């Protein structure tokens, strides 16, 4: 009974938050003299034939894949109370390095792709690792150091792009690295969809969907079923207790940052190996910051993060059609921001209600008083 109630509360909170966010967004749209129902229709209007509907699904998924990876990267840090705000810089630097290595050598396809992935993960991990090392050796807050490393990474990436790694001729309008050779490209999944009897979308569904799912499952196993995952959570919940039980807190910080950075390195790859084949000035930016929002929505749980990423992808898809309907596309960003705030507030309220209930039921059992539990949930947020 109690378990059912707790699960219900955990699911109810985000649901209520979504409704609240929808109401607030509706008022925003009303305030500018537009019809919220029109906006709602544009949001759910996937087109009238199966091809355009599949196209919408492909667009949503293609957007959700990098967001999912970004959410995973952020969540690893969050699990132990580490704020890796630097995912943005980590993936930008990782993507340009991977794009460059991918053009510098030509190997058989699986090896080439593996090389690109390994380079991206390594660069992301190194960049995030700097923040981890600064934290344990010099006591620099990772929040500040990762923000500063973001700026440095973006500066470095733009130096590399306009200088040594530039693949487009001098004077041309686009500034980008050279295109990846054929062996560095990951084919899309449209063929698979066709063989399943689904209509083929116009845009190619990223083949990176499959590695992303594999990564998601691996991360889920890692954080839920392994000693490392337990140590990670333990050092987040109660560093003193974790240290007392033999966890090396300093090593955990560095490991968590390395892992978080390695995952961050993957964020740019779905676009890189599935669509653009190069890193340029037009390359998708802002995924790192959105990843923070997605991780919050998903409560650091891989499955939840997948839902959060899909939700954001779903909202982003509508931006263009909203614009055509005369509603500023930035409504989408406002909806997203409102959802995040509403969800974190709702989670907080739900948590407090749960504690209240636990206190009430545990009033007869003095040992069950969750004094320390309070603080635990704070860090796990």
């Amino acid at each position, binding site marked *: 009974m109690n378990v059912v109630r707790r699960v219900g509360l955990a699911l109810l909170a985000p649901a209520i938050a979504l409704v609240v966010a929808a109401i607030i967004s509706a008022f925003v749209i009303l305030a500018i003299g537009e019809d919220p129902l029109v906006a709602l229709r544009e949001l759910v209007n996937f087109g009238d034939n199966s091809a355009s509907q599949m196209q919408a699904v492909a667009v949503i998924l293609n957007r959700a894949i990098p967001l999912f990876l970004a959410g995973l990267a952020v969540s690893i840090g969050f699990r132990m109370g580490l704020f890796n705000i630097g995912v943005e810089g980590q993936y930008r630097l990782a993507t340009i390095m991977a794009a460059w290595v991918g053009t510098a050598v030509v190997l058989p396809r699986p090896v080439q792709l593996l090389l690109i992935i390994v380079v991206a993960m390594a660069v992301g991990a190194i960049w995030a690792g700097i923040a981890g090392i600064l934290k344990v050796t010099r006591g*620099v807050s990772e929040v500040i150091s990762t923000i500063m490393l973001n700026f440095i990474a973006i500066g470095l990436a733009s130096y590399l792009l306009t200088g040594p790694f530039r693949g487009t001729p001098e004077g041309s309008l686009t500034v980008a690295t050279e295109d990846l050779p054929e062996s560095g490209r990951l084919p899309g999944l449209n063929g698979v969809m066709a063989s399943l009897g689904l209509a083929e979308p116009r845009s190619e569904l990223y083949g990176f969907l499959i590695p992303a799912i594999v990564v998601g499952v691996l991360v889920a196993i890692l954080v839920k079923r392994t000693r490392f995952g337990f140590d990670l959570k333990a050092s987040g919940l109660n560093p003193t207790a974790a240290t007392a039980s033999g966890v090396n807190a300093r090593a955990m910080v560095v490991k968590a940052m390395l892992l978080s950075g390695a995952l961050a390195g993957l964020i740019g790859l779905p676009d890189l190996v599935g669509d653009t084949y190069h890193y340029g000035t037009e390359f998708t930016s802002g995924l790192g910051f959105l990843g923070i929002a997605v991780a919050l929505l998903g409560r650091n749980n891989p499955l939840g993060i997948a839902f959060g990423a899909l939700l954001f992808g779903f909202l982003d898809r509508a931006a263009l059609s909203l614009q055509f309907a005369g509603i500023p596309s930035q409504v989408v960003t*406002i909806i997203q921001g409102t959802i995040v*705030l509403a969800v*974190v507030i709702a989670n907080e309220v739900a948590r407090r209600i749960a504690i209240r209930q636990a206190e009430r039921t545990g009033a007869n059992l003095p040992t069950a008083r969750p*004094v320390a539990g309070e603080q635990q949930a704070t860090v796990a947020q």
Partner: protein
Amino acid sequence: MTLALEKPAPAPTAKTRTGRGRIWLILAVIFVLLAVVRAVASQPALTSSSTFSAMLILAVPIGMAALGGLFAERAGVVNIGLEGMMILGTWGAGWAGYQWGPFAAVIAAAIFGALGGLLHAVATVTFGVDHIVSGVAINILAEGIARFLSEVVYAGGDSGGGVTQSPPIKGDAPTLSLPLLSSGPDLLGDLESTRWFLLSDAAGILRGLTSGLSVIVIFALLLIPFSWWLLWRTAFGLRLRACGENPWAADSLGVPVYRMKYFALLISGSLAGIGGALLVFVANIYREGQTGGRGFIGLAAMIFGNWRPGGLAAGAGLFGYADALQLRSQAAVTGLLLLVAIVLVGVTVWQTRKGKLVQAGIAAVFAVGLFLLWLTVDQLPSEFVFFTPHLTTLLVLSLASQRLRMPAADGLRYRRGEDK
């Protein structure tokens, strides 16, 4: 209640009067070093009045954001949302500025920023959401709101604004200069142009800091000592800081902790907003992305300044200087390499005398490396110059962060009547 972990309330930070003399000494040493490097590297931009007046203009917005951070964190709330509040401020300044001029711009920016602060207060104080989480959400939201408002207000209209920018600000705020020295006969200007070692450097710096100052910049500068007075010399300030050091104790003494945190965040947001307005005045127009992460830099400046007004002003000045130098003269930035190399030689000597040979060795290696870099490189790529301030922050923090002390209950969730 059951946990007897009550730490003794830390004494309200005693001011270190002994440090006062040392600060002047450090400033003097930095000044002489700058003058030496200016002469050796023959980069007059290093101490020119134009660099220093640009420094002031660029440092003040950062300083305001840092001051905003100070109020929030002294009351125990970490404010990563400064960047978002600053963005709201820039938008408010652009919108009010093009219609009613610069003073209205400042007021509107303060109100817009305060709204961001209010949101942060509702989330963190009333609902107890994690401070970083709320701040990040506010940053995302503010960017969307600014663009959305532009789309609604400017796009399609004939005001001259667009989706990413406002129409130009109407009119300028009056400017002041120091009579005789910086204006009219301009004695400092004459002295600066003589290129006498030390003397003309001092003249350049003084003239840069005293000529053609907008009254709004002066107002912003005055806010720094005013904040110090408010926080360290009034009952309000004592209560506010008590909320950041030990809210449980403050509550037991009758301080309305929630209300104080709300006040602090409203002040914090409006200061960040004013910082945004000052940025708008630099370009005389609101442009999307104008803050360029200066809210974060402000936060870093505050930490660099050890959660004190004087310190954060120094931090903001440092970033402003790095920023101004790269704007004035890219080549002069290479002069900084020499400066840092000299400083590192000093560190080497100091660490050797303390017997810390490893640290001394690292400093020596970097000093030699930077010196060689200075000899070989004429001009750094502009992308490197762009992140000079951020790299500086990182270096300074990694050298100094162990000596910093933040308010004891900073970033903690406080619920009235509940244990920690």
